[in-house]
């Protein structure tokens, strides 16, 4: 059975290879082929899942060593897979949502002349993401890690003719590379510490090393996670990444890839558990990002960017949860899965809206669309309810647990974290309600002559419906009997926190803040018409519109600074390094020119030189004897 694991990756990889190398001949069938292979992968995943369920909880992880990758004395990197409950969860999420989004893309990308290439990239992404979650060592994980980065780069920049898309793609890759640097340093430290970077070795021996090395590894892994999961301070790329086609935003920048950081930290739980201080940093990063994303999400008028802010914020929740240690891992993953459903659904809905609205993304030019796109409205609405944590829907179950766990952290920290998570919940409710209201309710604000809103075709709506089911049901199903937590427990371990606040109180306060958020949004966007041109807004609003000045900071410090640095280095290289050499050459030339003048053509002066030479010769000879 474990031989199927390789096949799991191979199917989409094959798809990518065929679609990208196949050329225009495959244009007609490319999208079907891509979707088919994604579905095959999903099918294999399900089969493996069934197989896994058939075994006892402690016996579920399987390993498959494929081949020795880089065998160098003392450095054994293998291509080997580890399929345990955590990986399985991801496999199902990736292939499941992935397949749905493939189907959606068939419709969404119908008029794009490069649709075949698009599906090739999507397949490539699936393969890389599966590799990431299936690897049994950090180096192979790194391959998948960068692989998804590449796929993300290609897909964000899919419409390369738009300079903004190309820039966004480059930015995403670069920021991710900074994170990758962290991962690569972490692996190096692992190698020098444990002589290996296989999960098994590292996790078994992690207790035997000192604080310093574990901390370094932890911080570097966190840096990597920040890059991939768009956490502060490496969050800046996610908003721009919305330049990519919407299915991409749904799959990569909402459901799967951006959550890889959560996977990484959860997977490395054994290391993080050793170092409290790093966990604290993780929690802080999560908390800051949670609020950061939420605030940004409130100010954006671009529907996708608003959702991107939301994604950032929700991942903040997950990161925060992972920072809590064993009490949070399972909930982080659970939120990850539910978020995968509803956020993918929301993005697909947004895509559907854009599809019907001539690719308009400004919500101020929407309004009252519920009549024109009923299916989209309903599915989007369900997603909306799920994300704000409407009781009973997916988001409610998962987010509630995280808030609980935050309180359970204990002490002042626990209170602060609890408050932050609650605040986040309120803001979430606010900005999502704002999106909902601006898009589907109120007056229509579009130009009726140019725009004819319409419902999307079946290929697009069906995935949305499926995801909507997920958004509604997943959380509840997972929470029955704590089944999800128990499922993951062998991998992530689990401990009930000692919450100072009872579960009921937390739930109640969650509902309260939710209502506050929704109410505020209603007051602002529901009761009165939405202006088509955005008002100037408060200082905070304006800052939030500019992603809280993050890009300005980057621009001034990194871009400008970098430009100055490189320009001055080019100058240095030219004048100094090269100058020394050319100067030496010129110096010899000058010397030559001067010495040359001695050769003045007069025989008598030559004789003088000879006479002088003879004198020196004689004197030197005598002097040598004297000395």
């Amino acid at each position, binding site marked *: 059975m474990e031989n199927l694991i390789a096949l799991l990756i191979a199917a989409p990889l094959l798809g990518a290879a065929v679609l990208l190398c196949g050329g225009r001949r495959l244009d007609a069938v490319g999208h079907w082929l891509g979707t088919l292979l994604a579905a095959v992968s999903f099918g294999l995943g399900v089969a493996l899942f069934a197989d896994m369920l058939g075994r006892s909880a402690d016996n579920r992880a399987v390993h498959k060593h494929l081949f020795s*990758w880089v065998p160098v004395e003392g450095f054994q990197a293998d291509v080997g897979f580890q399929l345990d409950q955590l990986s399985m969860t991801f496999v199902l999420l990736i292939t499941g949502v992935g397949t749905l989004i493939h189907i959606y893309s068939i419709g969404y990308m119908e008029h794009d002349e490069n649709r075949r290439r698009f599906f090739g990239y999507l397949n490539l992404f699936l393969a890389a993401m599966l590799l990431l979650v299936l690897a049994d060592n950090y180096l192979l994980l790194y391959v998948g890690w960068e692989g998804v980065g590449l796929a993300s780069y290609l897909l964000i920049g899919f419409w390369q003719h738009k300079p903004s898309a190309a820039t966004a793609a480059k930015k995403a890759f670069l920021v991710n590379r900074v994170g990758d640097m962290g991962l690569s340093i972490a692996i190096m430290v692992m190698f020098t510490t444990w002589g290996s970077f296989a999960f098994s070795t590292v996790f078994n021996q992690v207790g035997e090393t000192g604080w310093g090395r574990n901390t370094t590894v932890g911080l570097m892994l966190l840096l990597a996670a920040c890059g991939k999961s768009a956490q502060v301070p490496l969050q800046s790329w996610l908003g721009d990444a919305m330049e990519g086609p919407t299915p991409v935003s749904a799959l990569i920048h909402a459901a799967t890839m951006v959550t890889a950081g959560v996977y990484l930290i959860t997977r490395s739980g054994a290391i993080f558990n050793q170092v409290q201080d790093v966990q604290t940093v993780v929690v802080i990063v999560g908390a800051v990002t949670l609020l950061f994303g939420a605030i940004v999400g409130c100010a954006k008028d671009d529907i996708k960017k608003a959702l991107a802010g939301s994604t950032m914020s929700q991942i903040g929740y997950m990161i925060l949860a992972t920072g809590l240690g064993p009490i949070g891992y399972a909930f982080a993953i659970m939120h990850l899965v539910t978020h995968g459903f509803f956020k993918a659904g929301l993005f697909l809905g947004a895509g559907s809206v854009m599809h019907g609205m001539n690719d308009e993304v400004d919500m101020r030019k929407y309004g009252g669309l519920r009549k024109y796109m009923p299916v989209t409205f309903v599915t989007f609405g369900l997603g909306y309810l799920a994300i704000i944590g409407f009781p009973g829907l997916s988001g409610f179950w998962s987010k509630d647990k995280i808030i609980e766990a935050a309180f359970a952290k204990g002490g002042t920290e626990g209170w602060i974290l609890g408050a932050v998570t609650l605040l986040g919940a309120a803001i979430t409710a606010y900005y999502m309600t704002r999106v909902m209201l601006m898009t589907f309710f109120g007056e229509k604000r579009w130009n009726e002559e140019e725009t004819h809103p319409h419902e999307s075709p079946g290929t697009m709506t069906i995935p949305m419906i499926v995801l909507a089911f997920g958004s509604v049901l997943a959380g509840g199903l997972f929470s029955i009997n704590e089944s999800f937590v128990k499922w993951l427990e062998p991998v992530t371990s689990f401990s009930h926190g000692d919450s100072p606040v009872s579960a009921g109180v937390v739930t109640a306060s969650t509902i309260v803040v939710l209502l506050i958020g929704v109410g505020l949004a209603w007051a602002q966007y529901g009761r009165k018409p939405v202006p088509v041109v955005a008002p100037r807004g408060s200082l905070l609003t304006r800052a939030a519109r500019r992603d809280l000045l993050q890009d300005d900071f980057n621009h001034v410090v990194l871009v400008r600074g970098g430009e100055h640095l490189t*320009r001055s280095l080019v100058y240095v290289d030219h004048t100094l390094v090269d100058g020394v050499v050319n100067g030496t050459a010129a110096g010899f030339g000058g010397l030559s020119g001067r010495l040359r003048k001695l050769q003045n053509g007069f025989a008598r002066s030559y004789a003088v030189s000879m006479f002088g030479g003879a004198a020196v010769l004689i004197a030197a000879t005598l002097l040598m004897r004297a000395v």
Partner: protein
Amino acid sequence: MSFPLLTATAALPAVGAIATAAVPAERRTAAKWLALLVSLGTLALAAVQLVRFEPGGDRYQLTESHAWIKDFGVRYELGVDGIGVALIALTALLIPFIIVAGWHDADPLETHSSRWRPTQGFFALILAVEAMVVLSFEATDVFLFYILFEAMLIPMYFLIGGFGDRAHEHGDEAAATQRSYAAVKFLLYNLVGGLLMLAAVIGLYVVAGTFSLDEIAAARANGSLDMATNTERLLFLGFFFAFAVKAPLWPLHTWLPNAMGEATAPVAVLITAVVDKVGTFAMLRFCLQLFPEASKWATPVILVLAVISIIYGALLAVGQRDIKRLVAYASISHFGFIVMGIFAMTTQGQSGATLYMVNHGISTAALMLVAGFLISRRGSRLIADYGGVQKVAPLLAGTFLVGGLATLSLPGLAPFVSEFLVLVGTFSRYPAIGVIATLGIVLAALYVLVLYQRTMTGPVKAEVQGMPDLKVRELLVVAPLIAILVFLGVYPKPLTDIVNPAVQHTMSDVHKKDPKPVVEAAQ
């Protein structure tokens, strides 16, 4: 006596060079095919070497030894270790691609007199370089190596100075001046390095009384050769300087951007992917083996220079406006990695460095050759003259991107394996250096992606409109290179198996053992 395989591998291209040069002026197509066939034949011989080489066997295999210049204690001694055989394979592999890529680079212009036979000369020179490079990888006699090390400058010099980008050649006096400046700079830099090495070679002979690596090693082993510390250091510096110029290491690098910028793309590949490898190869084989103590003594400085090369080369690559110069600075950065790996004195570092030599050769070839195809279409090397190529020539853009991704060491492509090994190897002994060098991977992403963005994406520029996509000949060059990059990225084991034993020998030459993992050391 068995078949002299090593001599044959070098002799075939040498004879081929003469034959190619002798092809009559008007039969230039025949000359091209002849050169290609010879290079393929050489590739076949190199493949035979790979097959016949036993990774677990003696250090030097397929050896040949003949008296040559008795007075200088010089023998014609050949032998390959794993590193040599891998690099010979690389050379033999790349030359056919270089020839095919440069198929039309040396077609004569109408203005030339009938006696001027650039085409024959171009391909003959390439084969001559191949012969010398191959032989220098095989030489186990210091003098023989030195002779080839120097002699290969001459054909390279003519290749750089004599053949520029086609677009520039039409009566552009300034370009010709630039080109000869680049050629002279190349030659003088390397000649100065080589001459200092000559002094050291002579000094080595005075000290050791022989040029044979085997004999020197034996003398060291039985204690009959005992170099004074200062002597060893001076000799080491003489050797290292030459190799550092060739490699090139900061601050001796400035000839490379000029040379690569002015030469045609295939020649630029020849420089950076093939000829420069002799420098790094020689560091491994000669510096470490002949002067182990001095090598260790110089390690801190060299590592710092290597790290500066990595960062500095990458930053300058970011700042370039010329595609080929950008690739050149990227190469400087990569050579920094190679040197760092060699002098980290760990198994991982040195294996990584060796793999890096091979992988860098292939990846740069891919990137540079595609860049050359691009440049030949528009007639400009300036990045700013391009934009939106992806739209009109997706295949070209795609292959360019793959080449670029290889250059930035994307996992899954060959350079990643080597770069990571180098980093790990360095980190395990010199953590700070390793960490700084890791910055290079971010900068690499920056210069590659900026280059790609500016040339390939965005709105289609007017001058780019109607640019043809890759032709079959060009695709035949690029596709196999990419395939090799992917294969070696996924399954480098065949290569590491060959390289590992050689690295073990080198490690024992310098009496170094890998640092033990902390956990293991604690037990």
